[in-house]
């Protein structure tokens, strides 16, 4: 199997980010909240590769730990959103009838409120902790996964090969796991990449608004908030997360694109 260069670059970067996130304590030169200098917003130097932040902490270390937090929350929320959304979506498609109607109309209702607004409403009464964040983001986003999974499964469910399986006398388990799932997997995996990017942006936005990860814990959105005041003095410390988020998001996007293209070309294959 040949992997196109764009997808390869995407894969390498994505792996690198996850590697750094997992091994952050061994990679970061200083502690996460360790004040290493009396001077705030020091420019990059050999001692502090990205300089220091608004409290005199090593910015590189905070970026690395921040990446760990952001990626962890985004991954957990994606897994939650994905498992909930796709299981319910498949069930709705296979069961049909009132169960499908009830779930689908409820999802319509949730989706008629923008997710950020909904999250803000909920976070105004909930304690802002990491598990709550994961839960709120994951469940809100599972509505989108539900819609996709249901649509894909409904499309497959009306295929003659599924009808043939029903006429053959196959049980529901065989139909879901052997007929529908293998054909639904690729579009769902590609969507998983996009959901992950969305989660990264979502948690960063919440943290930036002060309603996500709470200080002194580092995360990319929070780093922007902490160092935003420096911008008007021409200090770019708040912009490093932009580079980190953009690189990660583009890399995952490239991988997702490749997964999706591979599926479509397989579908439209010879014959």
């Amino acid at each position, binding site marked *: 199997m040949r992997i196109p260069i764009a997808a390869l670059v995407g894969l390498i970067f994505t792996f690198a980010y996850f590697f750094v996130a997992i091994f952050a304590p061994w990679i970061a030169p200083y502690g996460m909240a360790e004040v290493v200098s009396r001077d705030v917003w020091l420019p990059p130097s050999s001692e502090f590769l990205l300089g220091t932040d608004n409290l005199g902490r090593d910015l590189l270390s905070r970026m690395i730990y921040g990446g760990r937090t952001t990626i962890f929350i985004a991954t957990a929320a994606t897994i939650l959103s994905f498992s909930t959304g796709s299981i319910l979506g498949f069930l709705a498609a296979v069961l049909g009838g009132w169960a499908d109607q009830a779930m689908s109309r409820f999802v319509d209702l949730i989706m008629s409120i923008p997710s950020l607004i909904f999250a803000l409403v909920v976070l105004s009464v909930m304690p802002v902790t990491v598990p709550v964040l994961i839960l709120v983001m994951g469940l809100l986003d599972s509505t989108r996964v539900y819609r996709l999974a249901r649509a894909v499964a409904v499309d497959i469910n009306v*295929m*003659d090969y599924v009808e043939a399986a029903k006429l053959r006398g196959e049980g529901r388990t065989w139909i879901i796991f052997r007929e529908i799932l293998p054909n639904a997997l690729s579009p769902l995996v590609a969507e998983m990449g996009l959901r992950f990017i969305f989660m990264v942006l979502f948690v960063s936005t919440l943290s930036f608004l002060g309603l996500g990860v709470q200080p002194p814990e580092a995360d990319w959105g929070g780093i922007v908030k902490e160092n935003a005041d420096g911008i008007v003095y021409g200090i770019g410390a708040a912009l490093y997360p932009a580079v980190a988020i953009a690189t990660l998001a583009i890399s995952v996007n490239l991988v997702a694109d490749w997964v999706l293209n591979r599926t479509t070309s397989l579908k439209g294959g010879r014959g």
Partner: protein
Amino acid sequence: MSDKLLAVKDLKIGATVYPPGEKPHDIEIVHGVSFELEKGKVLGLIGESGAGKSTIGLASMAYGRGGVKITGGEVWVNGRDILQTGLGDIRALRGGEVTYVSQSAAASFNPAKQIMEQVTEAAILQGKFSRKESEARAIELFRKLGLPDPENIGSRYPHQVSGGQLQRCMTALALCPEPDLVVFDEPTTALDVTTQIDVLMAIKEAIRDTGVAALYITHDLAVVAQVSDDILVLKMGDMVEYGPVDQIINNPQEEYTQALVSVRSISHEEKEPTSEPVLTVQNITARYKGTNFDVLKNINVELHPGQTLAVVGESGSGKSTLARVITGLLPQTVGRVNFAGRDLSPDLPGRDMEDLRELQMIYQMADVAMNPRQTVGTIIGRPLELYFGLKGEAKHKRIVELLDEIEMGVEFIDRYPAELSGGQKQRVCIARALAAKPKLIICDEVTSALDPLVADGILKLLLDLQKVEDVAYLFITHDLATVKAIADSIAVMYQGEVVRYGGKTDVLSPPFDDYTDLLLSSVPEMKLGWLEEVIANRKMESAGN
């Protein structure tokens, strides 16, 4: 050159393909085709899918669809090579000198505009006629083409008229600017046979009356024989045979042309009914959920073991619905289905494994009837596992036997459906049905998505297998030629009812009821002058009444 309206010399056409896992690259799809057309004559371009016939037709308007590019040769229209002239001249050619009628008028009309505006657009734009003249011409053409209410049909929107009517409107659109040449691209393929004959006659008369020349593109040799002066046979982008229609039909030189002419010449002797039918359909009435009319009305038919019952009808006749009732996908509201001596439960969950095993089904579109993620081995092997508990070596051995029965080798066992040709896919579906050792196989339009020669192969295979396996077929089709080839008994369906039923010879012999008569006489025959004969007969009959 100047005496010919159209002269194509050594035309080569290429396209870019995007094979999965490979770099996109260019291939040649038409390899040097040459022909000529005089004013007022009709040339038929015929071939199976992939022959390049539509591509060649569009090249006469200097047009390449999608990524198709004309890579070499000359196309002379009215004395100039249109591949060498500028864009302005090509615009004047399109819609003025040469016009186009597509297979799907429903898609080719702009849904947001009235028919009249679209029919007259080219004539006005090209400065051929004023708006008033164009509209008068359009109404005259609507009348000539036999459209109802010709004065007012132009003010309708495309979705407000039927498919057959829209196809005639498309012909009016092409003829309105008074072109020198019309390219007809499969103009009747999407229509039912009884509609096809009217449109075909309308087109033929319009060509005759206006003196326009035409390129008539189709995969159906019997159709093209009715309208053409000359025929060009194409195969995979190559010219096979080119000559006057009489010679091509009555004295084909090339083997491929001979095969095309003699297609559907399978003959099959009607078998005598045995004592006990394997399938008895009694008083079946059915309707779809949420609708208030019956799609099947009091259906009664029987099928004997090892025989074939053909259920024939046009779209909307209810023939596929009958299959859904028998398989249990649509429970009937009234009546019963008796199969192998027992009454079948109306709905699928009420049937046991033995019912399901003995009643198998083969679909029209083999592509979507097989899971693209399963290999041929898995597809054929699954019924063996499910019904007979076969595993490992025993299963493998049986799969190889079945592959052998469908005339495919053991090397196909690990292939995926996407790696098979259309005919091979349908064969695998047949093997999957046979694997269950059924008493009855329902064949739903199994040959209609295939090219005629491939379809012939499938029909021969089905007949051979019937002798060996002693299986009965319920054969659902719209194609009377197929029916003649394989049926023992026939049920003709029309608007949810069986209008004629009996042994093949009886059903196909006069006296006929009106609908069967219409249906039978509408099937194009591989014979010159057939169209005129039918039309003349119909006129005489209606005069006689």
